């Protein structure tokens, strides 16, 4: 019972610690924006704390550089056990334009187990709030993989033409 109570209470007050692993400051500014009264993330019990030992959530911004990687690992270990990692911005989500640079290991998922990705360069404050809302179960996830295929390819495989292109043998003779 105590465990379920803890699990319920965990989502009610997420204390976040903001980690800059080499970001250009764009995402940092958007994260700070989310905490202003206009967007007011404190509605959801989100509070910025100054030490990873007080935090429940790490907001990782920026690609993980080679120099900062061991420090980020130590930082993650310092966060007490039920913990979430949010990758904010394209750099933290997948490496951004530095995904294969010599001094960058890649996105935050190369070093930490990331729970939520918020892509964007930088993401809108609304996008970050939306990511938090998805994590808390307040909003449904909208992103889904897209697969599209030219209709003509399926016609090629099946050997059947669409009706608009079907022609009589005489017409076919003329066309050839």
């Amino acid at each position, binding site marked *: 019972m105590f465990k379920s109570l803890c699990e319920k209470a965990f989502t009610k007050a997420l204390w976040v610690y903001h980690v800059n692993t080499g970001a250009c400051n764009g995402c940092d500014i958007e994260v700070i924006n989310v905490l202003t*009264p*206009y*967007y*007011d993330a404190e*509605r959801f019990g989100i509070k910025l704390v100054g030490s990873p030992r007080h935090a429940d959530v790490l907001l990782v911004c920026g690609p993980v550089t080679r120099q900062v990687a061991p420090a980020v690992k130590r930082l993650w270990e310092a966060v007490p056990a039920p913990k979430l990692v949010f990758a904010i911005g*394209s*750099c933290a*989500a*997948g*490496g*951004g*334009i530095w*995904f294969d640079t010599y001094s960058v290991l890649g*996105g935050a*998922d190369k070093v930490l187990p990331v*729970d*939520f*990705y*918020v*892509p*964007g*360069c930088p*993401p*809108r404050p*609304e*996008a*970050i*709030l*939306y*990511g*938090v*809302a*998805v*994590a808390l179960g*307040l*909003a449904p*996830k*909208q*992103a889904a*993989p*897209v*697969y*599209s*295929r*030219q*209709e*003509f*390819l399926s*016609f*090629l495989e099946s*050997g*059947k*033409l669409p009706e608009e*292109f*079907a*022609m*009589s043998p005489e017409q*076919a003779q003329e*066309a*050839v």
Partner: protein
Amino acid sequence: MILSKLKEAIICLGAGRVTLPYPFAPHPPAEGFRGKVEVDSEKCIGCGGCANVCTPRCIVVTDPSQDTRVLEFFLERCTYCARCAEVCPEEAITVTEQFETATNDTQDMHIKAEVYMGSCQRCGRCFETSTALDKLMVTGFQGVPESGE
């Protein structure tokens, strides 16, 4: 001193509620916002211009067979510069206002589009056909559409 504080309090009372009701009410971005790209594979001619200009190189073009060209968009590292939409000659790539792309799986940010490419009967390499009728002529010579009658 006290008067100025009172004035401040009155201004604050007059302002009312300023917090956005965002996750519970939609808040569309301003016009010209560049969000997630959308690919119309029917319009695509497979020229690969988008992959050429992509800054984070998140568009990968491969030719798995002689007739198909596959465009894969790994949008988790997309920087939303919209250069791909700008250079696309057929306007197959469009920029939407979708910014609510937060996800717990990077697979959700992938787009895959398969495009038909006609192949030259002499050299066997792909070339793009401009219209559906041209495609028909190409495949007609290959003898695939037998169900025309």
